[in-house]
């Protein structure tokens, strides 16, 4: 009887238990990514329908065209104001994020001027207004003047993430890798501990199976649960507005990377679980490894924004390569074959090291029941 058959039997067991608790499984798979995608996805992305007040002292076809240009797209929502005074009080009250004043003679003077007042207490919205006015101005070959005092213009031009539409896909990509790693921690390590506590491990060891079948079945079920978590996360991300521009090929590449993350982290989780006695201490140790690994790996913040002293750590973090590959696939739309091979290679090496450790620690498990 082969170890593969015993592994398969134990894997069936894991899956039956997983199916029984599918509600909790789905809940866990939804909560993490939903929370992070919502929080991170909203933070730093372009706000939509930012209200601005426009005071049009010109009232010519030319100035109306300019206002139409401002309104194109849904970045800003234009509220007309009759006097500058009224508009400024709206700005002060925070009901609008910016005021655009089109002076009389907008079209007649040689150089078109508009005045822009921005509420820089709302930097996100302010920068949207600023960018939109600049874009419309370019179209009309006019120059938005810094208004006369009291000027509060403060233009934020540098985003950490760039306010592109790819931002959300990038966030979702990072989160997918993180939930895959978490899925392993829950799917394999925890069950090793609960099986030991309930005596199941001992019961398995009294059957005529190769004990490494137990280990392999845990790795397999952890990997499946990783993929499951990541899949749910991806669906949530797509619903929320992320894109997977590469289509079916991209999906397969994504699956491959997530599979490797699941494999490596399941082996890591089992290594930790064989070395911890209590579920609480396992949870603590596992989380204090996975969470920083996700952070340093670029799940939340691109690693080029990390301080210099953390960079070497990031390069040692297998999730860096997973996030890199996933973001290439999801954001850039394609991953060069060489990059895919390299990132996969790092993840495979990590998996092999972790599996070796897991095998080493698991060898004496019956002496430590």
């Amino acid at each position, binding site marked *: 009887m082969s170890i593969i058959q015993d592994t398969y039997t134990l894997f069936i067991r894991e899956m039956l238990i997983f199916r029984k608790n599918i509600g909790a499984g789905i809940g866990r798979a939804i909560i993490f990514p939903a929370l992070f995608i919502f929080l991170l996805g909203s933070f730093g992305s372009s706000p939509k329908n930012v209200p601005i007040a426009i005071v049009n002292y010109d009232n010519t076809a030319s100035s109306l065209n300019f206002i139409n240009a401002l309104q194109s797209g849904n970045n800003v929502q234009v509220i007309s104001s009759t006097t500058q005074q009224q508009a400024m009080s709206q700005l002060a009250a925070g009901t609008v994020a910016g005021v655009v004043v089109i002076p009389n003679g907008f079209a007649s003077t040689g150089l078109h001027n508009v005045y822009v007042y921005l509420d820089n207490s709302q930097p996100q919205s302010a920068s949207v207004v600023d960018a939109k006015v600049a874009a419309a101005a370019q179209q009309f070959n006019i120059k938005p003047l810094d208004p006369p005092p009291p000027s509060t213009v403060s233009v934020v031009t540098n985003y950490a993430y760039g306010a592109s539409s790819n931002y959300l896909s990038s966030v979702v990509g990072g989160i997918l890798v993180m939930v895959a790693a978490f899925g392993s921690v829950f799917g394999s390590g925890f069950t090793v501990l609960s099986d030991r506590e309930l005596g199941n491990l*001992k019961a398995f060891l009294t059957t005529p199976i190769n004990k490494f079948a137990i280990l392999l079945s845990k790795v397999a079920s952890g990997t499946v649960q990783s993929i499951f978590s990541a899949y749910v996360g991806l669906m949530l991300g797509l619903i929320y507005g992320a894109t997977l521009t590469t289509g079916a090929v991209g999906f397969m590449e994504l699956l491959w990377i997530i599979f490797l993350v699941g494999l490596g982290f399941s082996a890591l989780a089992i290594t930790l679980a064989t070395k911890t006695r209590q579920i609480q201490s396992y949870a603590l140790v596992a989380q204090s490894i996975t969470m920083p690994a996700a952070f340093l790996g670029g799940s939340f913040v691109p690693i080029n924004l990390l301080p210099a002293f953390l960079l070497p750590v990031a390069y040692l973090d297998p999730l860096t390569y997973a996030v890199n590959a996933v973001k290439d696939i999801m954001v850039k739309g394609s991953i060069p074959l060489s990059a895919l091979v390299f990132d996969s290679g790092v993840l495979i090496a990590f998996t092999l090291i972790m599996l070796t450790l897991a095998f080493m620690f698991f060898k004496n498990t019956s002496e430590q029941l």
Partner: protein
Amino acid sequence: MTEYAIETENLVKRFANLTAVNDVSLKIKKGEIFGLLGPNGAGKSTTINMLLGLLSPTSGRVLVNGIDVHKEPARAKESVGVVTQETVVEPELTAEQNLMIFGRLYHIPKDELQGRINFALDLSDLKEFRNSYAGTFSGGMKRRLETAKALMHSPPVILLDEPTTGLDIQNRTKIWNLLREINSKQNVTILLTTQYLEEADQLCNRIGIIDHGKMIALGTPAELRQKIGMSTVIEVSADKEELVKVGQIFKKVGLEPTVLSNKVSAPGGESAVLKVEKLVSALTASKVKIHNIAMHEPTIDDVFLKLTGSEVRDSTGEMTGAGPAALLRGR
């Protein structure tokens, strides 16, 4: 083929600073029901774990059906059914699924598996609960399921580590009947450990009493009863200062007392009731203050008292808490 189902030769297991099993040699014949009797921490579970191949002995050999457990673990394990001390059923699986998984792990051929599952459900009286999750079962039902699980692959030998500890009378009787049945009908050799003298007495053909890792008595229940003089026990508890006086009164009425930490105890012999009557009047006459006077059937405590001259360690609290006892249980 050997005539013995289980043989151990000079089995020794040492942990860091504790010899849990000390030179135990056992020969259990095929078809026997053998009881390994001892208090918590005596070395029962360590012995069982070595028989199961879970622990490697420090020295000595274990043979099951003539197969060396530590040289050919897979072959040896295939011929053994196990009921561990902790009731091990998976609460998140149904009774049938529990059996299915273990049937497969014991490599029961596919075409026989369903038949064996039905047999096991029948045996454990759980047929109507086959699709219920084991987590919803009572302690007794779980134990029965686990016992049936151990019997499913028709092993010629089964090992049970305290199979009835913590069960009510009804479930205990059900397990006993089940064990008797498979022993008589299928000639299955049974080795069980127990803390209950009554259980060993009722169920077993032979009993081995183990303490501090050493076999201190071995024989049929009848032999042991004779050796230990398992008659009714008379006990008087009193304040510490009074115990010596109570002991003297015991002697006066013809009893052989042992003075313990909080009571005086003596085997009642043949006319125990008569002796108690005498004892009561003597105690009343002497005006010694006593707390309680009792007669009871001998328990494991009494056996140990007789064999080792000391109380069972757990009951004095000596072994509770710190390491060894827990270690021996494999936890």
